[in-house]
C-alpha cells in the first residue's frame, strides 16, 4: 500500500469570459519537472495568452497528484461529513485551519470539543506546530499554536447523498 505519483503534473489555467463564465486550459508536464521550471513555463505560457484570447486568465495552478495503489477499507459507519475542525493561531496573529473528515469519537469530549489531552491529538498538534516549519497559513505565516478544535457536521452534498 503506497502513494504512487501520476505520470505527469497538471498545469491548469482558469479563464473568465465577458459573461462571467469560467473555462479552463489543461496541459501536462512530466512529473519529474521541478516546480521552478514548471512554474516558469507556466508564467511564460500565460504571457502569450492575452494575444490569442479575449478572455482573462484569473489564475493558473500546477498540481502534482498521487494515488493510493491499494487503499484499505474505511471503518464501518465512517462519514466524511463528521469532521474535526482545527483552527491554528499563526505568527502574524491571524488564524488558519483545516478539518479532518471522519473524526473518531475517541478524541471527542462530551461537549463536542476535541480532547487536546488525547495522545493522538497531542501528536497531531506537535507535528503541525513544532516540527520545523512544515506548515503555514495561506500567506506564509508560521503556525504557532492550536487556537480551537471541535467537532462539526457538514451538510451532505447531493453527490455524497445515498441513492434514492
Amino acid at each position, binding site marked *: 500500500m503506497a*502513494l504512487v505519483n501520476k*505520470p505527469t503534473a497538471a498545469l491548469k489555467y482558469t*479563464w*473568465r*469570459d*465577458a459573461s462571467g463564465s469560467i*473555462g479552463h*486550459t*489543461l*496541459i*501536462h*508536464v*512530466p512529473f519529474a*519537472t*521541478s516546480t521552478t521550471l514548471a512554474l516558469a*513555463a507556466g*508564467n*511564460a*505560457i*500565460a504571457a502569450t495568452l492575452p*494575444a*490569442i*484570447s*479575449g*478572455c*482573462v*486568465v484569473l*489564475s493558473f495552478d500546477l*498540481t*502534482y497528484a498521487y*494515488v*493510493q495503489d491499494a487503499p484499505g477499507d*474505511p*471503518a464501518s*459507519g*465512517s462519514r*466524511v*461529513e463528521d469532521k*474535526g475542525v482545527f483552527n491554528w493561531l499563526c505568527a502574524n496573529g491571524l488564524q*488558519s485551519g*483545516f*478539518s*479532518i*473528515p*471522519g473524526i*473518531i469519537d475517541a*478524541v471527542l469530549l462530551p461537549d463536542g470539543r476535541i480532547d487536546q489531552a488525547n495522545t*493522538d491529538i497531542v*501528536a*497531531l498538534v*506537535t*507535528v*503541525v506546530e513544532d516540527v520545523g*516549519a*512544515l*506548515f*503555514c497559513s*495561506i500567506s*506564509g505565516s*508560521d503556525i504557532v499554536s492550536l487556537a480551537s478544535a471541535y467537532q462539526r457536521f457538514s451538510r451532505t452534498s447531493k453527490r455524497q447523498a445515498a441513492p434514492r
Partner: protein
Amino acid sequence: MFVPICPTIELVLLDESGSTGSITFHVPFGSTVTEAAASASALAAVALSVTDCVLVRQRIRYQYKSDDTSAAEPGSSIKRAGVFIFANADDATQTLVSVPGIRDEVLETEEPGTGVIIDTSLSSVSDFISALFDAGIVNPFDVAIASLVAAYRQSRV
C-alpha cells in the same frame, strides 16, 4: 502579473459510503515537491490516527493568481475555443490544448479556412505554440508532443 500563494497539500479521504473529503493545508513558499510531499506524509501520519476514513489520494498544488482586475473583452466567450492538436513523439497518440475565447484576429481570413482555421503564421500564435514546446508539455501519459498537426476554432460547451 501573477502572484504566488502558498503551496497547498491536500489529503483526500474516503469513507464507508464512498464519499470523499479532504484535509487541506499550506506549506511555505518555495517548498519543492519533495519537501511538500514530506510535509503531507508527516501530516497524514498523525491525522490518519484520528479518522476512521482512509487515504486515497494526495495532491500538492502551486497556485498563481492574477492581480489584473480588468474584465474580459466584450463578446468573449469560453465556448468559442481555439483547439491546438499536436502529434506526439510516439507516432500513435495526439495531445489537445484548448484555449477559451479565441480571438477572431488569429483566424485565417482567406478560404477555405476563413473564420475557422487558426493562422499559425501570426507571431501571437507562434509565440504561444513555442511556449508550449519550450515548456516540454506531454500528454497525460507522459508522451511528449512532437509537432502541431491542426489548429482551429471550435464551439466547446
